[in-house]
Structure formats: structure tokens, C-alpha cells
């Protein structure tokens, strides 16, 4: 593993002292904005996160409320290694286990195996199905059916990507899959925008926010799978472009969402000022989780572009990079010096 190594003490100290800051997967010098290192999660991180979720007794499959989980997570003593990572790098500050459960931590290229991705997609879909049933306007115009079909398409594409390495014509298969995932993502974006735009027109509940979160999580999953497919066939320039464009799209999707406005819409049914204020305050944390989750995605995906640029400049072969992530058995995070 020539390009990836353990995070050295001077980087840890720099982050702890405030000299450096971690945004997405990039460690930056605060004063200059210059990237000094890239962080990359490994397969170990995925395993640790899975254990943490089990410890919480709250998996996506178990039907937890993604936007309601954070308080519990913050008080939960994560596994020792995750706690160390968190203390050392602050990578997990504002860490959203709900996002992690859906699409991985998002530090570097996703280290999630595709079987796990498929499982998580099904988890998001199941959650979406539960909340859609309680949102009348979603079911009224058959949008829930369309979303289910999109999820089925995504599942099919994940199956294909899962078998890419065994295919003779893996390049064409990977490219076709990446395109199909991008199409599915675009359709989900349309649902997201439509759902967001419809919020002021009806009574807004926390289920509406969870609906948006679920759609965003699925869009993110599509991106992670598409990026990984491109890395599998060493299409790193395309992966770089994809990451930057997808980050821009996520920014545009999340831009109109303002936590305070969402919370006020949830509270709008109250005409008494005290009850209204209490309802707004209660709805604000989940609204902030939704929006910060989307912003975290922008940062994580945008920094993937810089990471892939670094790989290109070093002449790293994409499949070798992915293999290194899968082979790592101890460190949840590795580093690539910039």
C-alpha cells in the first residue's frame, strides 16, 4: 500500500490544535485553505459503523427515525476505535449516524461493499414506504409507486456493479450502470424538489422532513455506487467530474431548505404564540439534521473530486486503490498526503 498510510501524529495534532480543519475528506490548513492531506475510510469503518448501529438497536431495517436518532447517538458510547477516530480527527463532529447507516461515512471513495449498499437501499426504501403511507399527498398522485420503481432500478444496478469484477466487458457494463444510476438519481431529485416545493401548500409534519431525508440518502447512495463503478474501471477523470457535478447538484437541492423555515412550517398549525414557539423549537433539531446532512454530502462529495485529482496526479490505478481499502484490516481511516 504505497499511497495510503496511517494518519501521522502531526496531522492529528494539527487538527486538535485548530491549525488544520477536516472538511469532507480533506484536511486543510485553516489559514491558507491549502489541502495538506486526504482522509480515506476503509472497510474497517463500515464494520465499526455496523456494530455501532447494532449497539443502538436501531438499524434502517429496524425502522428507526433517521432524523430522530442523533440525540441517542451522541450519548452512545461508540466502539473504542470509532471513539478514537472521533477524538483524534473530529471527522465525526456533527456526525450523523443516520447518514452513515444509509450511505457510509463519506470520507473518500465509499468503502461500502455493494451487498451492504443494496441492503441499505432496501432499508431506505422500507423507511420511505412507512412514511409515505402517512403523507397523503405523496400517495395521492402515485408518486410513491414511481419512487418504488426507481428503487427497484437502483437495486438492479447495484447487483450489476457487484458483479463487475467478474465480467469480461466490465468497462461497458460499468459505464452503463453509472449512467443508469445517474438517471435514477435525477428522477429522485425531481421527487425531492417537488416534495420540497409542496411543503408550504399543506400541513407539514416531521414525516415530510424524513421523506426528504430518505430521498436525499438514496440520491447519495446512487452517487457513491456510480463513483465506485468508475473507479473500478479506472475512469478517474470521469469520477472527478462526476463528484464535482454531483456536489453542485446536492448544493442546489439543499440550498432552498432552511431549518428555521422548515421548523416554522411544522409549527404552523399552532395559533397560540407559546405553543407555536415550542413546536418550532421541537422541530428545529430534525430540520437541522436534514439540512446539515445534505450540506455534509456536498462537502464529502465535493472533496472526493480533489481526492481523485490527487490519485490522478500520482498515477494511482483505480482498482488498486479500491483493493487497498478492502484489504485494510485495522485502521478505519487512512491518509493520503497532499
Amino acid at each position: 500500500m504505497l499511497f495510503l498510510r496511517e494518519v501521522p501524529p502531526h496531522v492529528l495534532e494539527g487538527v486538535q490544535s485548530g491549525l488544520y480543519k477536516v472538511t469532507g475528506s480533506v484536511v486543510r490548513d485553516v489559514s491558507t485553505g491549502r489541502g495538506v492531506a486526504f482522509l480515506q475510510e476503509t472497510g474497517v469503518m463500515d464494520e465499526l459503523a455496523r456494530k455501532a448501529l447494532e449497539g443502538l438497536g436501531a438499524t434502517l431495517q429496524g425502522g428507526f427515525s433517521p432524523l430522530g436518532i442523533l440525540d441517542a447517538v451522541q450519548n452512545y458510547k461508540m466502539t473504542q476505535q470509532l471513539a478514537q477516530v472521533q477524538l483524534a480527527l473530529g471527522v465525526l463532529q456533527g456526525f450523523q449516524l443516520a447518514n452513515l447507516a444509509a450511505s457510509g461515512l463519506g470520507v473518500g471513495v465509499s468503502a461500502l461493499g455493494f451487498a451492504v449498499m443494496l441492503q441499505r437501499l432496501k432499508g431506505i426504501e422500507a423507511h420511505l414506504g412507512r412514511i409515505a403511507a402517512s403523507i397523503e399527498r405523496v400517495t395521492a398522485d402515485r408518486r410513491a409507486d414511481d419512487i418504488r420503481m426507481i428503487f427497484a432500478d437502483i437495486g438492479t444496478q447495484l447487483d450489476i456493479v457487484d458483479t463487475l469484477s467478474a465480467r469480461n466487458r466490465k468497462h461497458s457494463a460499468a459505464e452503463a450502470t453509472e449512467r443508469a444510476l445517474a438517471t435514477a438519481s435525477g428522477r429522485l431529485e425531481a421527487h425531492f424538489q417537488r416534495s420540497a416545493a409542496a411543503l408550504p401548500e399543506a400541513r407539514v409534519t416531521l414525516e415530510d422532513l424524513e421523506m426528504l431525508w430518505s430521498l436525499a440518502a438514496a440520491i447519495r447512495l446512487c452517487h457513491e455506487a456510480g463513483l465506485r463503478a468508475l473507479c473500478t474501471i479506472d475512469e478517474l477523470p470521469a469520477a472527478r467530474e462526476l463528484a464535482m457535478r454531483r456536489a453542485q447538484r446536492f448544493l442546489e437541492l439543499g440550498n432552498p431548505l432552511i431549518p428555521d423555515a422548515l421548523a416554522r412550517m411544522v409549527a404552523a398549525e399552532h395559533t397560540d404564540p407559546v405553543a407555536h414557539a415550542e413546536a418550532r423549537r421541537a422541530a428545529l433539531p430534525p430540520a437541522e439534521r436534514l439540512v446539515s446532512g445534505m450540506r455534509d454530502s456536498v462537502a464529502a462529495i465535493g472533496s472526493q473530486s480533489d481526492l481523485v485529482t490527487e490519485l490522478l496526479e500520482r498515477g494511482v490505478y483505480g482498482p488498486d486503490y479500491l483493493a487497498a481499502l478492502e484489504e485494510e484490516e485495522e485502521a478505519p481511516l487512512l491518509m493520503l498526503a497532499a
Partner: protein
Amino acid sequence: MSYQLLDAELRFLAWRDAQFAAISAQLEEAFPALLEDLSAQTARSSLVRIATSTFAQKKAAEEAVRRWAAQQLEQALIRAEAELEGAMLQVPGQLAIDSTLWDRVSAALPAMAGVGLIGASFAAIPAVISFATVSSTVLFFWSTSAISWPLLAIGAAGLGVATFTGSRSVELAHQKARAGLRARLHREAGRQVFALGLKPGTRCILNDIQAAVLRAGQNRLGGSADAVPA
């Protein structure tokens, strides 16, 4: 576009979101003081004035709300400007002198009015205001169009009858009249400040203050773009 540009844009979105939440919390915290002011105004009014002078009640209530709103606006602007300056200082040096950043963020800001609530207020606030001028501009708006109170007098007929049926009845009528007026003033204040019970997106003082802060922030960033040498 580089990741650093995205990161800078995220900083300003975070500024917007923090300001909006802070303004809501600020107004909620200060609202009881406004209600007390309106209650005191009712207590001071003579029965005859309560019963007959719609114009006087309306004017006094409008003035109390406008005075309170002006204080809230000032506080919100001071906080927003200081925090925006802080966010701008955090932009790395090389990026800060690149007008692309300020152009981009400034161009993105119209969409920053967000889903639903402040669109009408944002459209009503003049596009050219700055942190220095926004206060007087918004106050002018409130004095001419936005704050419109319904008739407040409770009517003289019932009180007139009560006045001639004995002192106990008069006292009860006084209390009832004041309580009724106070309740109406409080309810109306809730509508004026938070648009309580109205359609989401209706103009109110909270939406106007959030929109004014956003406009001023937009123009501060736009000014930075203009200040970068070509």
C-alpha cells in the same frame, strides 16, 4: 468550480440558516414584552377611549409594535453583520481575493430566500439596501404598508347601557371591555409578528426581518465582488 468554492458557499448558507434561527428565537423571546406593552396600553386607556376611539387605539397599537419591531430589527442586523464579517474572514486568503467566489455566492443568494416562507417579504424589500440603510428602509415599509391593523374599538353601545345600570355593572363592563381589547391586541400582535393562523408565506415582521437581513447580506457579498480588482 473547485471544492474550495463549494466550501465557501456552504459557509454562507450556514450563515443564512444561523441568522434565520436566531431571529426566530429572538422574536419569540422578546414577544412577551410586546404583549405586556400592549396590555399596559389597554390598562392606561380610559373606558370612553376604548369604547369610541378606534383610530387612537389602532395608532397606539401600531406604534407599540413598530417600536418593538425596530428594536428587534436593529439587534438582528448587528448580529448578522458581525457574523457575516466573521464568515468572510474565514475564507482562505487566495480565495477571498478571487471575485469568482463573491460573484457565485451573490448570484446564488436570490435562491437563498428558500422554500415557502419569506418569498413575499424578500420581494417587497428593496434590492439596494445595505446593513447601514436597511433599518430605516424597512421601518418605512412598516409605516406605510405592511402593518395594517383591524378596527379595535369594542363599540360604545353596550358600554353606554352598562354605564346607566349601576356602578357594579359599570366596573364589570370596564373589566370586560379591557380584557376583550387586550385579547384582540394580543391576537393581532401574534398575526403581525409571526403570521399566526395565516397562510405560510404571508408577510409578517419575522419574515420581513429575515428577508431584510438576507438582502443586506446579499449586497454585502455583492459589494465584495465589486471591490475585487479586475
